């Protein structure tokens, strides 16, 4: 259910971007002949020194924040069962979970906020309408109905002493490879710069799209002319006389959120208090909360292992004490990433403050969280302490075998030498390991300087089938018992004999 909601949000976002972009492009295209409008826009620009926001910009600026996307009540929910909306001052929280910024909020009923130590998280104090949705046991907010930023400065206290006072700063989320992939947070002027760069490139793309349509229309007109001539004269044109079609521009693959303002919190591990001091110098009611900043218990390198013989059944191994066991010769692919082990309760609560039951009863559980993937390292294969192979990261493509029979091959992604791969993307990037199941090995990752990445070593052992020996060995104590019993009987007989 949670997945389908995220999927719906993601699809909505992508659709919104696509629709607004298409509408803007169409408008730009249809506006080619409307000289007076352009003149007005130009006059406004000249006269006031500021351009009217483009539809693309309007779309970017109207995108809701991550917290709002994650916790916004749908119209269906607001319309069902007459939920009792309550106006509250809440903390909207976008915590970093190692891979992305999640979205949650702390309503008045929640008194502790959890954040990861030494990483930036975004906090904001806002007034909104809150209600409890009993079907999913979570608090929801009607951000679209009411979203007011509560002015003031955020005070952070430790042991009753104010240790820091934060002003709101501009922030922007940036996705270098598009939404749903790597996410970065930029703060202050850098956030504005990154966003403006993205917006300019997006505008340039839409300009290029308009130019493309214009060029395409012109090309089509020339082609129609040529066709007409050929039909009339019956003489074919020389290929050099046929114009090249215009090339369609490629849209930016990255994405940047329009900057907003909030409190960027980055604290070392510890228990703090936060509160908002208003412009009148008073503490804003309902803003005093406990802030639990937690750190990892262990750090290491997690392996995503993709076995070649069943590549869709990949598995994770994060704990350095894990051993990879092989049954015979095996080929497998390793996708490494930095990993950190956190308390499950704190890690889950961090991103689910609005769900009171989430993570409850798990204070004794620990979990590994994936961080950024490791791409600048080499995989070393060792046997008896000697490096026998160094493997580099390469892209691979899973090619289905043609025909009705099931099957696939995993091939190195090399579109230059394999025409079938042209225009396609690699299925995954990984380190390919091929090991014979006859001896034990060790795997480890080393950086460019040859330093072993902490927690990256794993033992690999081929398992042997022991047959019945595995049941014969446990009988050893029984054999010893029989010997002892026999010896006791013998000594008892001798004793009796002596007595006789």
């Amino acid at each position, binding site marked *: *259910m*949670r997945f389908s909601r995220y999927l719906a949000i993601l699809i909505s976002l992508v659709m919104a971007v696509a629709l607004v972009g298409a509408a803007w492009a169409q408008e730009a295209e249809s506006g080619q002949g409307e000289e007076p409008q352009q003149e007005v826009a130009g006059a406004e620009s000249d006269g006031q020194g500021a351009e009217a926001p483009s539809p693309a910009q309007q779309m970017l600026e109207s995108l809701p924040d991550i917290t709002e996307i994650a916790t916004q009540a749908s119209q269906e929910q607001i319309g069902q069962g007459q939920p009792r909306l309550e106006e509250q001052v809440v903390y909207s929280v976008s915590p970093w979970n190692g891979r992305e910024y999640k979205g949650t909020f702390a309503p008045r009923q929640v008194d502790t906020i959890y954040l990861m130590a030494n990483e930036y998280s975004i906090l904001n104090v806002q007034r909104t309408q809150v209600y409890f949705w009993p079907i999913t*046991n979570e608090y929801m907010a009607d951000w679209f109905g009411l979203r007011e930023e509560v002015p003031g400065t955020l005070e952070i206290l430790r042991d009753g002493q104010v240790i820091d006072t934060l002003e709101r700063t501009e922030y922007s989320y940036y996705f270098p490879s598009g939404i749903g992939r790597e996410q970065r947070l930029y703060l202050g002027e850098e956030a504005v710069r990154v966003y403006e760069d993205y917006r300019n490139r997006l505008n340039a793309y839409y300009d290029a799209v308009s130019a493309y349509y214009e060029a395409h229309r012109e090309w089509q007109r020339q082609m129609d002319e040529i066709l007409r001539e050929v039909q009339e004269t019956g003489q074919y044109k020389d290929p050099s006389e046929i114009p090249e079609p215009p090339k369609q521009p490629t849209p930016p693959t990255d994405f940047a959120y329009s900057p907003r303002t909030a409190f960027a919190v980055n604290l070392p591990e510890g228990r703090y208090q936060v509160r908002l001091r208003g412009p009148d110098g008073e503490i804003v009611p309902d803003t005093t909360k406990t802030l639990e900043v937690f750190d990892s*218990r*262990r750090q290491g390198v997690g*392996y995503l*292992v993709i*076995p070649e*013989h*069943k590549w869709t059944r990949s*598995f*994770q*191994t994060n*704990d*350095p*004490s*894990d*051993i*990879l*066991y*092989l*049954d*015979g010769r*095996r080929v*497998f692919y390793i996708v490494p990433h930095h990993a950190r082990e956190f308390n*499950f309760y704190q890690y*889950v609560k961090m991103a689910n403050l609005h769900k009171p*039951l989430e*993570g*409850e*009863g*798990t*204070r*004794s*559980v620990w*979990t590994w969280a994936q961080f950024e993937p490791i791409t600048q390292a080499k995989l070393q294969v060792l046997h008896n302490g000697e490096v026998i192979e160094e493997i580099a990261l390469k892209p691979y493509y899973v090619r289905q075998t043609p025909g009705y029979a099931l099957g696939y091959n995993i091939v190195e992604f090399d579109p230059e030498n394999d025409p079938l791969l042209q225009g396609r993307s690699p299925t995954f990037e990984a380190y390919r390991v091929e090991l014979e199941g006859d001896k*034990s090995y060790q795997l480890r990752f080393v950086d460019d300087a040859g330093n072993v990445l902490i927690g990256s070593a*794993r*033992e690999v*052992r*081929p*398992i*042997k*089938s*022991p047959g019945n*020996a*595995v*049941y014969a*060995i*446990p*009988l*050893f*104590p*029984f054999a*010893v*018992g*029989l010997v*002892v*019993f026999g010896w*006791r009987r013998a000594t008892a007989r001798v004793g009796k004999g002596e007595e006789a």
Partner: protein
Amino acid sequence: MSVGYRIHAIKVSTKREIRSTLYGVGIYVVLALIFLISSYVFVNSTLRSVADAGIQALTNPITSPLFVSVGLAATYLGLCSSLSISRDRDLGTMEVLFYGPVDSISYVLGKYFHQLLAYLVILVFSLINFYAISLVTNVGFSIDILSIMFLSIFLTSCMVSFGILLSVSTRRVIVSVVLFLALVLFFLVFSMVHTWIMSIAGQNLTPTMVYVRVILDNANNFIKWISPVDYFLRGMSAVFRQDPGGYALSILSSLIYSLVLLSLSVGMFQRKGVRR
């Protein structure tokens, strides 16, 4: 009674009892059965699952059968200590002993050290058994396994102390045996259910299951201090985390646990007397 006499009494009692244990066949039969059970678990869990998967990441798979073995052996010795004291009381042996140079401290410690020595013998057999199994299956026999084996001495110490306390606090053999087995079973089942519930922590649970989890977790906060199994599990976890501090703490807390239980046993002896 002077310390010297007491130590002598403990030595004599321990020596007599351990000789009796080693000359009997019971311990060998029980050990063979325990090892057979653990081998069966091992073959049907680890070896088959690796063979089915082709490649699998596991914590050293010897750990589970080792845990089963040392857990059963420690329970067996705890039960033996409980039985032994109850039987001594029932048969009047205890009363006779206490007319001689034996007091409650030397009697309790004699029983305690006897079972610990018996466990050291079991540990030697365990070492041979699991080393041989790791050799024929190539699963590896690491320093972690040795650390867990060493840690199991303290599990046995807790279990034996627990058995002694129960037998001292009850007057009938059957009551002490049933109580010991029921409590150990409860600790084991609770530990297993708690571990299972916590292992599905990432999955969506119904509100009822979440409340069950909360109750279990709160109960665990109490039970982890009285269950001997939990002291051992904490130590095992420290071994896999390569956490020497946690490992030492587990040993220290097991020793304190044993000391407290043995002191309580001595106190109860003195309060209740040794007569049937």
